[in-house]
């Protein structure tokens, strides 16, 4: 069988996050809750965060979606836990750059998120990978404007 391209997309680390998601659930008394849908495909995600002094103390996600969107959420929660909000948002920018095939700066301390680099070869799936990062950005922006 010739699924070589598929192997690049569905790397084992991605499928591991999909099948064994990290930080799945809801923080009941979180400081920030954000919901986001992808209306074209039906994916939805809810992030709950506990942000203290601009630092992400804890973050959980729940939702429905394909392996790429759910794995990306799982990876993101690991990457941003313990980080300053500003740093978390800049990781999102670098992640977007990676999706667009541009130069990006992703370091080892950001967990597994670089494993999704292959998604940029599948233009129809980029929005799956970025859903969780867009949700984070939306949540932070809305809380800042309150």
């Amino acid at each position: 069988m010739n699924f070589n391209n598929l192997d690049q997309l569905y790397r084992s680390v991605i499928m591991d996050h999909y099948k064994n998601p990290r930080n799945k659930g809801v923080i009941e008394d979180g400081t920030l809750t954000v919901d986001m849908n992808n209306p074209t495909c039906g994916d939805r995600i809810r992030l709950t965060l506990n942000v203290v002094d601009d630092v992400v103390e804890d973050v959980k996600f729940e939702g429905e979606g394909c392996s790429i969107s759910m794995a990306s959420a799982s990876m993101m929660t690991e990457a941003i836990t313990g980080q300053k909000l500003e740093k978390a948002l800049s990781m999102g920018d670098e992640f977007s750059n990676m999706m667009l095939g541009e130069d990006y700066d992703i370091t080892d301390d950001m967990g597994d998120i670089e494993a999704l680099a292959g998604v940029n070869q599948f233009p129809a799936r980029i929005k799956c990978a970025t859903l969780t990062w867009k949700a984070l950005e939306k949540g932070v922006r809305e809380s800042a404007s309150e």
Partner: protein
Amino acid sequence: MNAIDIRKDFPILDQKVNGKDLIYFDTSATSQTPAKVIDAMNDYYREYNSNVHRGVHTLGTKATDGYEQARMKVKNFINAKRYEEIVFTRGTTAAINLVARSFGDMIVGEGDEIVVTEMEHHANIVPWQQLARRTGAELVFIPMEADGTLKPESVEAVISERTKIVAITHVSNVLGTINDIRAIAETAHRNGAYISVDGAQAVPHMSVDVQDLDVDFYAFSGHKMLGPTGIGVLYGKSGLLDKMEPIEYGGDMIDFVDLRESTWTDLPVKFEAGTPMIAEAIGLSAAIDYITEIGPDAILDHEQELVNYAYARMSEVEGIEIYGPKERAGLITFNMEDVHPHDLATALDTEGIAVRAGHHCAQPLMKWLDVSSTARASFYVYNTKEEIDGFIESLKRTKEFFSYEF
């Protein structure tokens, strides 16, 4: 009919996608276009592009003839009584919105009921929701059976003297259910209600006779029946269209314009404000010629053969769940156990197979099915059993790929 010969008329099908022969199983979203249709639109732009219903020059006359002949062709194709009953719109969605806005606002009031079903495409739910909100009417749903069909008794039970409009799809774009429109129209009329039908998934695939069905309104799109995007049709009984107000105003649709008031021209142009979709109407006309040449009955037979074959072969693949009734139009909506439909569609795409994945613009129906999304394979004149065989092999490989312990 011979699908192998038919395929030669579709230049787009002769290509490789991701290194494999394209297998196009997404006709329910949009159909492909035969060379004759592309040529008809090309000829228009190369030889007689002009505005219609205006001026006296030669090209303008030719364009007007082409546009109005297209209307006549649609009239004959669905057996409308008069050509004035054929209104060109941007598509099915625009046609339904026209009915809901103009006719709906005219006859629906507070406490009235608008009857729909849970199998409707968003285009046949949202305009009626909005009508209900504007008027204070209530939206009422005919319940579905477990297999996604409507029982005649349920239709009888829901449609009542309170019903003003029944808005229903002829063929479900997800379940493939074929509704008994003639019977539902009879029930609606017996209760003093009108019926508006979404025919987007029916007209391309079977013979539709609006007089025989006795529907009040019937809407469909060009791009799902081998024609171009950007054009659709609203059929309406002339007695009703006559009473309705336009929802768009401007050029072409007027009779006299004074500084402070104006009057409208006659049907059907009353509902076609502005320069219409001329090339698209001419393309639709060529598409109707193409379908007529094959014959709607032959198309239906071919699709039935394909869908029955696909249904049987997909049932062989372990972990595939198929939604909707056994007796169905030429499409199969399904899920593969433990594989999200987007992942499935990506895997099939790497092998050149185009299927739809998502909620198919039918979120209430997804809720009813208790799934967040599904995959769908849909068939048309140019598809073959060999393609279905290739699709089945790909499904099996996809299943194997995702069941691998990563």
